[in-house]
């Protein structure tokens, strides 16, 4: 079964992020995405969208697009933004074993995405940044045609 691809757009404004996430979360629930995965998807999209909005969008009039597929067996999403080229995967992981005094804020969002998703791919194409994430549920023999 191939899941239908949907698409949502938002202005590059921080307050728009939870509104979009509420919508995708509700659609995911209707589509039968298991709750733990839905929660992980929300977190990952939140982190990535906030990064896009806070760093490097041309202005609040710029539009960020999220393409996504949601189903009981997994989720797939692609964030497309017209900001300057930036690969968030190029950032080093934070030191999550450092003692309190040595901990510095930052870097955790992308780290969560790396840890929680099965696939995280960045691509710069046609003047857009494209960040794709995917995770399957208990896939015994993953079939690429599902995603």
């Amino acid at each position: 079964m191939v899941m239908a691809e949907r698409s949502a757009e938002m202005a590059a404004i921080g307050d728009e992020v939870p509104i979009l996430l509420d919508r995708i979360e509700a659609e995911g629930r209707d589509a039968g995405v298991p709750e733990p995965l839905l929660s992980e998807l929300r977190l990952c999209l939140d982190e990535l969208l906030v990064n896009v909005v806070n760093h490097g969008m041309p202005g609040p009039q710029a539009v960020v697009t999220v393409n996504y597929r949601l189903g009981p067996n997994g989720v797939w999403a692609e964030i497309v933004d017209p900001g300057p080229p930036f690969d968030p995967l190029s950032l080093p992981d934070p030191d999550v074993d450092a003692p309190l005094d040595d901990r510095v804020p930052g870097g955790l969002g992308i780290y969560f995405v790396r840890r929680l998703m099965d696939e995280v791919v960045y691509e710069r194409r046609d003047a857009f940044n494209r960040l794709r994430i995917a995770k399957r549920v208990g896939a015994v023999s993953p079939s690429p045609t599902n995603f």
Partner: protein
Amino acid sequence: MRIVEEPFGSGVVVKPVGRLDSTTAPIAEQAIRDAMARSGHRLLLDMGELDYVSSAGLRVVLAAAKQTSAASGKFLVCDLKPQVRQVFELSGFTRIIAIVATRAEAEL
């Protein structure tokens, strides 16, 4: 997000209700900073009604932990729901922040 605050032991308990994300983190940060100033940096963060936290929320928690440590105060977190616990574990916060199961087990 809503924030409930009340005296607790020799300090204060701050309870964020709802979601702690990039849009609500500034509100929580201000509330925690005010509570620390009033309580001599003795603070319990009750997460019992916090449904969701992102890295923007963790930034606020880390700042509170660092500030209370620098002021030789006390900072405790209690009652983590599953999503909050998962994010605390992933980020290593369970190793650097004092966490207790419930408010009843917290001592300030």
